[in-house]
């Protein structure tokens, strides 16, 4: 197998301080709801403005303003179409209302917040992303010969060809769209099954799991509740049939419960150390944290 990393929708950014951040990238399909929401918001504002101008009676009071309201609407359309994204992405740190609702954010490819200059470039080049423009005449012969139907072929092609799923505007501005997510810390799993507690003392004290095995077992315990019991046992047996002799528990032990017992023994010990280090006594004496998870044994 090649040494290439597993394909995923993530971008790693290393800061000058040599700290690595991983961002989850948003491609065309995750961006679409945000794009649609922004169009909807713009259309709603413009419609409200038009309704206001029509109902307020301003044009009836001053007939000369009739044309002016039309001009105002056209100008508003132009303003919203060209400056909406630019304005919000600049003041809201890479987010428009649509992106904020959809949990997306525009970032520089080096992980820094985007500047007004970058926001301008990526928003002004949106027109290029919509190309090629089709004419309705292609399919309806009587339609006017105006090329105005955007196909967004350029945007799709650019996203297909770039590893950060960037459209043309992103490429020119050096930006990428990522998921604006907070780091989720998995909660401490409660494993109170009596079968698990009964197995823990039976585990040989000298049995130690490797780092990778520990991680795999933790992953299993975290996911097991969403898997059917029969399938759970099938899965757990893949590993337990290899290690059961070393673990020292009776061979007929339930594989699922055995993995849970191994997890609980390991992580409860770590949790106790963690709690101990966080106790006010330790905080007062400023004792350094124990680095090894099982160093209390």
């Amino acid at each position, binding site marked *: *197998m*090649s040494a*290439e990393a*597993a*394909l*995923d*929708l993530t971008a790693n950014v290393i800061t000058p301080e040599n700290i690595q951040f991983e961002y989850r*990238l*948003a*491609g*065309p*399909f*995750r961006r*679409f*709801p945000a794009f649609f929401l922004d169009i909807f918001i713009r259309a709603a504002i413009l419609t409200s403005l038009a309704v206001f101008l029509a109902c307020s009676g301003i044009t009836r009071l001053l007939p000369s303003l009739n044309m002016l309201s039309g001009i105002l609407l056209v100008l508003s359309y132009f303003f919203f179409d060209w400056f909406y994204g630019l304005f919000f992405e600049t003041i809201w740190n890479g987010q428009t209302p649509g992106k904020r609702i959809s949990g997306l954010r525009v970032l520089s490819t080096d992980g820094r917040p985007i500047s007004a200059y970058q926001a301008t470039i990526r928003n002004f080049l949106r027109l290029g992303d919509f190309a*090629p*423009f*089709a*004419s309705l*005449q*292609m*399919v309806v*012969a009587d339609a006017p010969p105006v090329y105005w*139907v955007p*196909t*967004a*072929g350029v945007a*799709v092609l650019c*996203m*297909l*060809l*770039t*590893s950060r*799923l960037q459209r043309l505007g992103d490429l020119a501005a050096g930006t990428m769209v990522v998921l604006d997510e907070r780091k989720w810390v998995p909660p401490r799993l409660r494993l109170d099954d009596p079968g698990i507690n009964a197995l823990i003392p039976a585990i040989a004290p000298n049995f130690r799991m*490797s780092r*990778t*095995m520990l991680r*795999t077992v933790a*992953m*299993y315990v975290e*996911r*097991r509740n*969403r*898997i059917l019991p029969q*399938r*759970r046992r099938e*899965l*757990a047996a*893949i*590993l337990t*049939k*290899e*290690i059961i002799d070393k673990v020292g528990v009776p061979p007929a032990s339930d594989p699922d419960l055995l993995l849970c017992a191994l997890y609980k023994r390991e992580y409860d010990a770590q949790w106790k150390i963690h709690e101990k280090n966080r106790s006010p006594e330790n905080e007062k004496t400023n004792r350094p944290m124990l680095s090894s998870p099982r160093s209390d044994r």
Partner: protein
Amino acid sequence: MQLDKTAIAIKQRNLDELLDLSLAVLRRFGPALLQTALLGALPFALLNGLLLSSSMVMRGYLFDQDGWLRFRFLVCMAMLVYTQAPLAMAGVTIKLGNLMFGIQSSKQQTLKAIGKQWFSVFGILAMLRGIFPMIALIGGMEYFSLNRDFANYVGTFWISMVAFMIAAIRSVRPFAPEILFLEKCPLFSLKRKESRNPMLFGQRSKRLHQAGGELFQASFFAGIVSAVFLLILNLTFVFLVGSLAGAWEWGWWMDLFFYPLALWAIALWGTILRFLVYMNTRIGAEGWELELKLKAEATRFQDAEAGNRVE
């Protein structure tokens, strides 16, 4: 082969993430997949051409530009490609399965893998999933229909109905190619106990397609996205032909070459997306990522023990 070292990161994803990932897969494995797709699609494309294009030429389509004839042609071509795609793209499915674990497979090996399953392929994909019935229906209509209006209106209606039924089956049971070509489940086995795979096709299909609602939702959205992509590709082709040759209208070159090409491109993308949804379904329902991790861990433990014994 390290089972937990896969070419695509294995984790549970949403549908929109899978759709994005399908583009990333196309980018990374594009050349290999395109080659395989081309080999698979070519015989079917020629057959479709024979079925539809020749009769269109014979009936004077190129000269009288009959609107209904063109509509029927577009519908029939789309239906043919839609029904043929799972078999035509069988090579892509096998290739993706191999690429996932870094296995390089030749064209001969791929063909051999399809050939080994010929009976199930014939029964499930060719017959039950409508490849032969659709070819027979369209071929019969094109070559043996005496009444042109009947073929235009009633024929198109019936073809659409058959395609709709096939779509309904495929939207709730989409993973037949994966079960046949990747899991190699036999349709039935006389020597079942000796068989490498203890599950038959029907059993496996029932177990894998338990989340019918989610699969229908995925198929529905994939259908919408395919239609949009088809439109984008065709309009882009019209634009390219217009820019290069000055012919801006949707002419016969679009009907005979670029439209089928766009349909096959969508079929390739659809196959990649189906493979990703298949992986996701296995992860969600069966803990597939756990299975791979646990198997890899068991192997590592065995190796470490063997090393200790030698020492």
